[in-house]
């Protein structure tokens, strides 16, 4: 006499497809009826055996992909080096709103008061520092330790890339990059990790925005930030960091 079954084989197969090949679901009551059915019905038992074998082989095949040897240490180093005051974390809209408020205010003042060109660059610098100071800080569009990938991303987004990079800076790991807008002009931010753990932010904007302005290439200090601007290959490059001027100077 055929043993009485509580569920059909098709129903049992449907449920058992979710049974993990490592056996971690053995105690889950959802599978109980289907597993009992498999002990009673040879056809279902054969199907389940084949299915588990298939699942185990797929898991084993996929496990052949090994992560890069440096990934584990890179993750730990990245976590350890993240200084809590400069994390690019959550709620980008809030931070972006802060930038827009600052930028809007600047645009308004430009239109209404006809500020001088030198004021314009000061306001650009202030807008960038305000953004870096905003809490929470904005998300980066791309998080990567690979400098080439940041510039590739910026190029894809039609944002200005860093036109020239000193060898010392090229060897630093990046944290990531972001595209931004100031006064209707797209510009970019690329962040590097200095050996001290501080970040070095590099803003790049088309030089034509500030075409008639003399740029002082001396470091300035504002609210704990050290910054300076340079004209490089048609771009205005602004370097900003909380690191000491001596440390920044080694890389730019």
């Amino acid at each position, binding site marked *: 006499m055929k043993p009485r079954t509580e569920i059909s084989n098709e129903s049992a197969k449907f449920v058992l497809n979710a049974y993990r090949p490592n056996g971690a679901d053995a105690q889950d009551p959802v599978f109980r009826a289907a597993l009992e059915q498999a002990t009673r019905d040879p056809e279902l038992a054969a199907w389940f055996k084949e299915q588990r074998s298939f*699942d185990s082989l797929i898991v084993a095949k*996929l496990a052949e992909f090994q992560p890069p040897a440096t990934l584990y240490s890179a993750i730990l180093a990245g976590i350890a080096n993240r200084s809590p005051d400069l994390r690019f974390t959550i709620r980008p809209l809030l931070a972006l709103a802060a930038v827009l408020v600052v930028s809007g205010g600047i645009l308004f003042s430009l239109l209404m008061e006809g500020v001088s060109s030198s004021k314009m660059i000061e306001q650009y610098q202030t807008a960038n520092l305000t953004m870096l100071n905003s809490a929470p800080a904005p998300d980066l569009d791309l998080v990567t330790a690979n400098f080439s*990938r940041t510039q590739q991303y910026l190029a894809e987004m039609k944002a200005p890339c860093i036109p020239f990079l000193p060898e010392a800076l090229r060897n630093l790991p990046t944290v990531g990059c972001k595209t931004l807008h100031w006064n209707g002009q797209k510009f970019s931010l690329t962040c590097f990790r200095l050996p001290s753990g501080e970040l070095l932010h590099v803003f790049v904007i088309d030089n034509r925005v500030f075409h008639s302005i003399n740029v002082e290439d001396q470091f300035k200090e504002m609210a704990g930030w050290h910054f300076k601007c340079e004209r490089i290959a048609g771009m205005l490059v602004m370097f900003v960091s909380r690191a000491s001027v001596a440390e920044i100077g080694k890389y730019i």
Partner: protein
Amino acid sequence: MSHKLDLEAVVGRFYASLYRFALSLTKNEAEANDLTQQTFFILAQRSHQIRDTSKVKCWLFTTLRREFLRALRIQSSHPHVEFRPEVHDAPSISADALRALDARAVIDALDHVEPTYRTAVELFYLSELSYKEIAHSLDIPIGTVMSRLSRGKEQLKAILAAAISENSDKIIPLKKDETAH
């Protein structure tokens, strides 16, 4: 279970499986590398918000997928369409034929499973999350997870069977030497 996260232990335990999941999503080793790192950075930033440490694994896979989708939206200006084979019946595949298959072929086969079913299947094989955790991760009912696993696995078998058949067709028999009479 609720206590402070040991980040180093969490990284050590999950980084390899997260990397594989990232690789299956991105199909690119450099992007998988970045995505895995980014996921752990987000964990480090928000670790104080995680009250139940037993759910870290599910959180990591959910976050990685969300970050992948976020990046995908940024790149959506360059969409591409792929042909995906119609699947009728799940054929039986011999274990030996499957063992002989290259691991890359398996991940390629996963990529050809219909998107509706693919993520559930990828999470099943690459994360070893339970069906309940997959449901939580994808924000879908448990029954839907089972349905997607059932259909998705059928498709995966059919695609793999086709790949195995294609491989065997490539074996060219040696020609007889007609000059050696």
